[in-house]
């Protein structure tokens, strides 16, 4: 059996911000009525977090739950535990009209840390990343350069970015370019 590896196998870059491909991350997409009990129970079973509000990401003991649309959540969990947690989620959903699928290998996750992280994000997304406008716990689906991507802010002030695995190389190149040493503008 071959070992699973992430899209860029943990590639890193140090510039005005630290860019790192997060490596293997468990991801479960959950669709359904977000206000219904079975869906809330499934979120708790996978992440230990409360269901996030509109445009938010909530963090729990075993993962995080990000709000993707009015009827869709992305649940983050440890990669190895994803199949077991998916089974738990499906048990929690029961016969409810909802869908949970393991999409861990379909997406790439990046971490952006450092003092200029807001600025690096601001160069790539059409989003206001000013302090006060974008704070920890906020999640936005948008576009990064020419690709669809979602960005959120962790409790420690770092950013997480996910995009489709097939465009991981492009996403990393964009982030590297935006974090080129000496390219700080000093907006935020």
């Amino acid at each position: 059996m071959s070992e699973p590896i992430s899209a860029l196998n943990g590639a890193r870059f140090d510039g005005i911000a630290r860019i790192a491909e997060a490596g293997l991350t468990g991801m479960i997409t959950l669709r359904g009525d977000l206000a219904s009990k079975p869906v809330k129970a499934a979120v708790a079973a996978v992440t230990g977090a409360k269901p996030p509000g509109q445009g938010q990401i909530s963090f729990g003991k075993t993962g995080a739950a990000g709000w993707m649309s009015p009827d869709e959540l992305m649940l983050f969990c440890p990669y190895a535990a994803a199949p077991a947690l998916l089974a738990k989620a499906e048990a929690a959903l029961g016969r409810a009209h909802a869908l949970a699928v393991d999409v861990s290998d379909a997406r790439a996750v990046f971490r952006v840390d450092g003092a200029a992280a807001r600025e690096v994000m601001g160069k790539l997304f059409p989003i206001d990343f000013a302090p006060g406008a974008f704070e920890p716990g906020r999640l936005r689906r948008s576009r990064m350069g020419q690709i669809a991507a979602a960005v959120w802010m962790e409790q420690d002030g770092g950013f997480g970015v996910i995009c489709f695995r097939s465009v991981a190389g492009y996403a990393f190149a964009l982030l590297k370019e935006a974090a080129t040493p000496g390219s700080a503008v000093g907006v935020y």
Partner: protein
Amino acid sequence: MLILHCPYCGVSAEETEFAPGGEAHIKRFGPGASDEEFRDYLFARENPKGVHFERWRHAYGCGKWFHAARCTVTLEVFGTYPAQTTEPPQAIRDAISAKRPGWSWREFE
């Protein structure tokens, strides 16, 4: 550039995050529609100078369709509202009337 408010995400985002979907509130007649009604459903479109109603999709966001009321001359957006409606809600009509008194668009005014 347009800045549209997605009624599902609750965010105001710029035009490149959205995909245009043509005219809103197109009505299909039937069953038993006449050839003229079916022709108009397929091909007859408004081309107004001023108030216009359009469908947009938050393609890079939640992926949902919604409606937008805007002015084709100034690109001013009067408001956006969910797609699950067959005519502009009263709040949107009032917002347009406040800025463009006497406006009309198809059968709406």
